[in-house]
């Protein structure tokens, strides 16, 4: 049984053991997964090829070599004559010999560097070379880039970097500018001047039009895209301490909405664009390495992620048919990139606390006096009800300066004694902590001629700001791909994650309620489970005495085989099979000293859960360029099966609790329950990408999906889409303006949503237990109403977009405008209780969405000081366009109204301020309203505030718009970046009811039993408060207290220092960086109390400051 840690100490030995454990595992993992790869031959000049060509140009011959090997040629066609016709027949000859044959006798110098073959006229070599330069090329994370090209601009003189990213080059006399380039990186130019050392960091190509992005069941050049697809760059997030990938996505892409969560290791909420359904899930589909991923993002080590692509519009998402209405997120993990094996390690360590909107609760004095006021205001209201016309006869408030009078009102002797003795506890302080957060990540990767591998291990440990809120994770990942033969490629991804959420966190909700005057028994074994004996006030630290173990394992495997059909040019067939197996074991023992164990002499609960998903994808791709025509066709057949089972084992009545949940047979009363489910999907998809002259683009997709979760007649549906693109800058009238890039896109298509899951069409029974005498009797009764006609929800949408770049990409970005309509909306519709059921799933109604998204990237400064700015903006409006068929249907019970947003708030409208005594005396108050109560607008002007007639739509829960600004500045070895993220309300958008935080409870029972918030003081007749009610408050009706949650947040900030290459070279280290970063450091908002993003939740968002380093060998 786990020991209860009272004084938290850092168990250093424990930590080292864990690290050793991880390292051992890693080693085993590395050895097993890379054996066999290392043996393969280096891609070199010894590679042999065969050719049989008649009457072809040199250019064509070189192309043929390129297409049948991994070699590619670099040459300047003004200096090398490649239009010359030749005949060549070679059989299994060395590449160098073959090239010599092609250029037989010509003055061409051939330099082979790995896969690159640089052809230069021999004359150039003979040119007078005067100056020798050297340097190193690295990527933003500091990894050296082997094989990068360094070329003197306008010449063929150049070099490629070696395995450590180093190069040296002898320059011709007139050399002025160097060009640095590497696949997937932005090409950089640098003037030579007098410098002899050039250390260059190449940035990843993020908005580059040549970038290849994942589009689902394949990839496509960004320049050929016709849909709205965004690639999120994680490079800039490298210095941030994010334990969850989604944290890194907040505010980085227009229309991608991430809402943080305040507990350690919990998954943030993700949505894309607007809400398209009333009740079905709005979670986007997650695809990991080409496989639909039903697991949690929390299982993925962010350091393993190469890129994240977001499919936002109908056309691009349509390849995922029935699951795509909420958008699709494609996660691609890393592969080995460099010939030299690279070992990289990074770590960060830091601390987190609550964001800057802390909760204030009443202190001892306020808490004690509130009871004086509670009872005083009872008398006051009784007097108000006599309709006085002046203050004559008004009850007098007891003298709150007399501590004996105040003490006498307290509810328990314990509180009286502590009040008089001046003892006080701030429970919020007692249960919160400044919490450590740490991450360690080790990876090993590389590439040989035919294989690439990436193996990594990570360990993360995070504590929350609530005591005992703990999270740790170990991940192991291996990604291996091998080209077995010219036509057959095998890949295997193995990923394992171990997450430990053990321990229940202290309760902030209970701390807010707890009496500051309770006896201080914190840490004592004889603590009071209910403070002052009051069941409304559980000891906020009760959970620390609960023994809980919550372990989640996830194993994700993808095996894939890809055949390039040799005799049909451009045709490939890929089969991939994935299996995800995840388990959760949540075991808890509640001792008799905790509320959950007190009533039953100790309670043990075990809750094992396991789930298995398997997917088979068969993909045929046909890729062909014929003249000006480019065709990329994809056919898919896919099948998915998911199965899960879980049990709940419960035992109570532990005479001897010492073995806890590990031996439940020691409990006198045992109950069990179990669940299981299965679901199946079948899918067919066909997609055609066609491009003409690189400027007229077309994508057409159709997907047919079947899902077991729908009724027998509605299992299948078709989801077609079509999109068109026009690269205007390729047209002759714009072509001359080379600094401009302009593409127009339009797409139209249908997407589905099956997000209500399995078995939703069934009526269900629930079982419980009754007892006859002392014999248990199983009780079974109907609990859920079914719907035989339940079917798909379909979203049809239109997206128009522009991608643009001006001034040589100094300014670039995109604009998207979209409109969508969802029909047959899946709704968990509330029913009148007369039916015997609270709600039923139904396809009713329709919802419209429209919105605009802007992305703008500017390179403000370039040179010694680099400064780039990213700005994104998104706005979405939704509207219920049909409900139950009527033109003006309204469903007050669900707060749904035709013509209004889904998130409409239907409530009493505040008229501003509180009723005053003056208004009472002069008879101006409405009937049954008294001073200290909110004024509400009498909508129907009948002099009474009541449910029928005085409620109206007073605002919306959803944001008005969102924006974020990222700035990255780099100077010499320093790089600084910060991200401001904002969600804005305005015009009554983004409102939430904050009354549980800012006002005394409407229920007097709780307002006199428990402690209250001190964010806004409560009204008394004399204190002039005009925004919070009195403490004895029994209004005839009441609405919520709505505040705007608008905020601007300094979400990410980081400062990075790159060690100078010279020093690193001496130390024989590839790369090393130090960084300091902060998250959620400051939030500007007018929202009261907790963080605006997490709202009234008792797990407010955390902020952190961390420091760390990255090192690569």
């Amino acid at each position, binding site marked *: 049984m786990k020991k209860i840690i009272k004084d938290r100490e850092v168990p250093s030995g424990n930590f080292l053991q864990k690290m050793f454990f991880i390292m051992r595992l890693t080693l085993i993992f590395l050895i097993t997964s890379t054996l066999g790869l290392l043996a393969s031959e280096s891609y070199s000049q010894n590679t042999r090829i065969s050719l049989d060509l008649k009457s072809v140009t040199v250019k064509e011959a070189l192309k043929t070599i390129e297409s049948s090997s991994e070699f590619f040629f670099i040459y300047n066609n003004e200096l090398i004559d490649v239009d010359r016709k030749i005949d060549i027949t070679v059989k299994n000859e060395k590449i160098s010999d073959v090239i010599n044959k092609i250029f037989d006798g010509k003055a061409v110098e051939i330099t082979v560097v790995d896969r690159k073959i640089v052809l230069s006229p021999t004359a150039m070599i003979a040119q007078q070379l005067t100056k020798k330069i050297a340097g190193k090329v690295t990527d933003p994370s500091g990894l050296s880039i082997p094989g990068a090209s360094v070329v003197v601009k306008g010449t063929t003189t150049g070099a490629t970097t070696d395995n450590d990213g180093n190069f040296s080059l002898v320059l011709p006399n007139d050399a002025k500018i160097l060009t640095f380039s590497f696949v997937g990186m932005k090409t950089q130019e640098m003037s030579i001047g007098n410098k002899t050392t050039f250390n260059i960091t190449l940035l990843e190509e993020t908005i580059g039009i040549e970038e290849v992005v994942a589009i689902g069941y394949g990839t496509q050049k960004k320049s050929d895209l016709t849909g709205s697809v965004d690639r999120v760059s994680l490079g800039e997030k490298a210095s941030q301490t994010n334990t969850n990938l989604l944290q890194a996505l907040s505010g980085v892409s227009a229309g991608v909405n991430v809402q943080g969560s305040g507990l350690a290791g919990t998954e943030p909420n993700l949505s894309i664009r607007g809400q398209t359904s009333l009740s079905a899930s709005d979670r986007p589909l997650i695809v990991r390495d080409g496989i639909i991923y039903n697991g949690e993002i929390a299982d993925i080590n962010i350091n393993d992620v190469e890129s994240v692509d977001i499919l936002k519009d109908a056309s691009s998402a349509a390849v995922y048919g029935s699951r795509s209405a909420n958008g699709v997120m494609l996660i691609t993990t890393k592969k080995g990139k460099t010939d030299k094996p690279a070992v990289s390690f990074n770590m960060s360590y830091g601390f987190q606390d609550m964001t800057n909107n802390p909760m204030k609760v009443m202190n001892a004095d306020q808490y004690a006096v509130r009871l004086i006021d509670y009872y005083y205001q009872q008398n006051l209201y009784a007097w108000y009800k006599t309709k006085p016309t002046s203050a004559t006869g008004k009850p007098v408030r007891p003298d709150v300066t007399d501590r004996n009078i105040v003490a006498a009102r307290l509810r328990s002797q314990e509180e009286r004694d502590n009040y008089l003795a001046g003892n006080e506890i701030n429970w919020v302080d007692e249960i919160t902590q400044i919490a450590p957060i740490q991450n360690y990540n080790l990876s090993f990767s590389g590439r040989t001629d035919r294989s690439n591998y990436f193996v990594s291990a990570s360990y993360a440990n995070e504590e929350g700001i609530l005591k005992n809120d703990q999270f740790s994770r170990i991940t192991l990942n291996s990604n291996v791909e091998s080209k077995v033969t010219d036509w057959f490629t095998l890949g295997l991804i193995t990923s394992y994650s171990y997450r430990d959420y053990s321990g229940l966190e202290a309760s902030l909700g209970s701390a807010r309620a707890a009496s500051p005057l309770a006896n201080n028994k914190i840490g004592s074994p004889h603590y009071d489970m209910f403070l002052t004996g009051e069941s409304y006030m559980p000891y906020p630290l009760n959970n620390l005495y609960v023994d809980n173990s919550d372990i989640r394992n996830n194993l994700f495997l993808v095996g894939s085989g890809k055949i390039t059909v040799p005799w049909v040019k451009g045709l490939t067939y890929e089969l991939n099979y994935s299996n995800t197996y995840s388990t959760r074991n949540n075991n808890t023992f509640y001792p008799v000293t905790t509320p959950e164990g007190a009533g039953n002499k100790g309670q043990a609960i075990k809750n094992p859960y396991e789930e298995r998903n398997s997917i088979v994808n068969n993909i045929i791709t046909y890729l062909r360029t014929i003249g000006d025509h480019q065709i990329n066709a994809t056919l898919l057949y896919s099948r998915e099966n998911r199965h899960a089972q879980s049990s709940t084992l419960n035992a109570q009545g532990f005479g001897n609790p010492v073995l806890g949940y590990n031996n439940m047979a020691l409990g006198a009363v045992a109950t069990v329950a179990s669940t299981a489910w299965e679901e199946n999907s079948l899918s067919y998809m066909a997609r055609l990408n066609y491009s003409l002259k690189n400027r007229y683009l077309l994508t057409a997709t159709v997907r047919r999906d079947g899902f077991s979760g729908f009724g027998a007649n509605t299992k299948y549906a078709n989801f077609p889409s079509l999109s068109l693109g026009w690269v205007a800058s390729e047209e002759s009238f714009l072509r001359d303006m080379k600094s401009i890039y302009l593409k127009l896109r339009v797409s139209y298509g249908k997407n589905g949503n099956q997000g209500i899951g399995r078995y939703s069409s069934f009526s*269900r029974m629930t079982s419980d237990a009754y007892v006859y005498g002392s014999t248990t009797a199983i009780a079974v009764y109907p609990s859920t109403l079914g719907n035989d006609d339940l079917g798909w929800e379909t979203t049809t949408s239109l997206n128009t977009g522009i991608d643009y770049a001006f001034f040589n990409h100094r300014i670039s970005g995109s604009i998207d405008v979209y409109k969508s309509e969802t029909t047959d909306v899946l709704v968990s519709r509330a029913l009148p209780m007369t039916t015997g059921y609270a709600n039923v799933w139904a396809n009713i109604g329709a919802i419209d969405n429209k919105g605009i998204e802007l992305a703008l990237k500017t390179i403000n400064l370039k040179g010694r000081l680099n400064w780039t700015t990213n700005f994104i903006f998104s706005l979405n409006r939704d509207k219920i366009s049909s409900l139950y068929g009527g033109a003006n249907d309204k469903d007050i019970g669900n707060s749904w109204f035709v013509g209004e947003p889904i998130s409409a708030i239907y409530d009493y409208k505040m008229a501003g301020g509180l009723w005053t005594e003056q208004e009472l005396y002069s008879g101006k108050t409405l009937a049954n309203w008294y001073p200290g109560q909110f004024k509400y607008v009498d909508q129907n002007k009948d002099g009474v505030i009541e449910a029928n007639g005085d409620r109206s739509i007073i605002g919306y829960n959803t944001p008005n718009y969102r924006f974020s600004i990222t700035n990255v500045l780099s100077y010499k070895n320093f790089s600084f970046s910060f991200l401001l993220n904002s969600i804005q309300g305005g015009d009554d958008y983004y409102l939430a009811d904050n009354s549980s935080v800012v006002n005394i409870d409407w229920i007097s029972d709780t307002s006199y039993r428990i402690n209250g918030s001190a964010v806004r003081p409560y009204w008394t007749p004399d204190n002039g408060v005009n925004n919070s009610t009195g403490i004895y408050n029994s209004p005839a009706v009441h609405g919520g207290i709505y505040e705007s949650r608008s905020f601007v947040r300094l979400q990410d900030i980081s400062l990075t220092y790159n060690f100078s290459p010279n020093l690193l070279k001496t130390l024989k280290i590839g790369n090393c960086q130090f960084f300091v970063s902060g998250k959620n450091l400051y939030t500007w908002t007018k929202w009261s109390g907790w963080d605006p993003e997490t709202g009234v939740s008792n797990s407010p968002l955390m902020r952190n400051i961390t420091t760390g380093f990255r090192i690569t060998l």
Partner: protein
Amino acid sequence: MINQYFQFNNHELKIKTMKKYSYIFRKKCLLFAIIPLLMFTSCTKDVLKETPLDFLSPENAYNTLPGIQQGIAGLHFSARNWFYGGNFIGTLTRGMGTDVAFFGEDPNDIQFLNNYKTYLTSENDRIWNLWKWNYQNIQRANVLIAGINTSDIALWENEAQKNSYLAEAMFFRAYAYRILVSFYGDVPLVSEVINSAKTDFVRAPKADIYKLMEEDLTFASANLPVPGKEAAPGRITQGAAWHMLSELYLTESKYQLAVDAASKVIDGYKYALMKTRFGTRLGHDVFGSGDVYMDLFGYGNQNLAENTEAIWVVQVEPLITGGGVVDGDRMFGPAYYRMGNTPDGFKAFRGELVNGAYTGYSDTLGRPVSWMRPTNYTAYDIWRSDWNNDIRNARHNIKRNYYYDSPGSIYDKKKIDFSLFPAGSRDLMRDTCQYIYPFFMKFADPLNHFTQPERSGGGFTHKDLYAIRLAETLLLRAEAYVRLNKLDEAAADINKIRNRANATPVLPAAVNLDYICDERTRELYGEEWRPITLRRMGKLIERTLRYNNNPKNPGANIQVYNNLLPIPQSQIDLNINAVMEQNPGY
């Protein structure tokens, strides 16, 4: 299988690819033969057929005898959990805010029915729960009735067996309507299974509801087992059905039928008032004395075969699956442990020694929280005529004196007397409404707490509860006799109870509806559903105004329109295809 797949794609490709496949198969390796097998195994439409793995549906739950028995247990389960245990609704049904009780902890609190005017709003969620729970049980009963009616005839030994199950389900349907129609007046009549969304309910006249109840209860009284032949303790018998029928006829002003139905219970079976001591309390008298009335409420005594007074006993059992709890002392007792110090400044109640610490709670009194403070009428006035002889007022049945448990204080073991405190140092209202007041011990289970030892049971007890007891049947018949102006017969029935209680017999001339109300209070306080009794007699408003001495809200501020509860607002809001009228005044 390959063909099937490629037909979907396109013809041309199919031929090409077929060629490719066969070529590869011949030339290259066996691998490609395996792949298609993997791809298309069980590629049939059946893949998408959905079969529930872990839940039953209305179609298959009730088509076996054990299934039907589970359905019956479902009705018992919800009736117990909703109306007898662990929630605040119990205070509403047992008479808070009527002539018998008010909320003791804070007589001005708005969580409980202290003030009709402010409490009874259509948005009150307790009002909504009372509505919701009854309609849920009606649907549950309807599904079960439909299941039995459509069951395979081969399930049953004979028609009588089948009818006995139908009868029990119908009993619970009538039980739900009994509550609805009394509290809300005209309510929607649902007598068939609801299979799809329905939002056009209208309120049916009370007469229609009564008609269904009559049919259900008449069927039940004919087809349920006779008392003593029920399958298990707590199951419904003919006696219970006749009792409910008698109450229904009284409500309908069919007084002779009410007499006849009550007589079926009183004379038709082996029921009899208990007159001699029995059961578990013998030899275990907590306060040094005891009697048969105390034994009626002893732990475990309600189910005993020798207890001839029990007609329907709601089942509770500690530490067993399905056992449940009831609020017991939590609901009815005073929060003595909050009173503070002795006059000389020591903690008034040291409590029990548990795990090395004193709890502050007495294991005799448990941990009550003074929800139901009996009105002075209930606590004092009705007892005055027979204060010393009525056993129901004996000190072991109503605890009136409390004693300090405060070693160190000179007041230790002395009777608590607030007049000994310095003048002005105590709040009289809290002292007498929350901390110390007469505690009807039939709700407590002294020295018998099974859970939460550190809180002396936490307010919960595990005693079985009488839902119907013969004493109430006698008082129903007496009420019918009063209505028929047969006062001799009425007095005779009442005196059966008074004689057992050793109280002075009442003279026929003194018997009237108010007298019956008083006797019901003496005999049945906390057992009967007081608001139903008072509405039936038309005395809710009158007697609440007269006897409810809530110190902050005299008469609970009851208004004439408060005779019925408001229809829950969500019911009105969600019933979008028909207008559901609100009760007048709301």
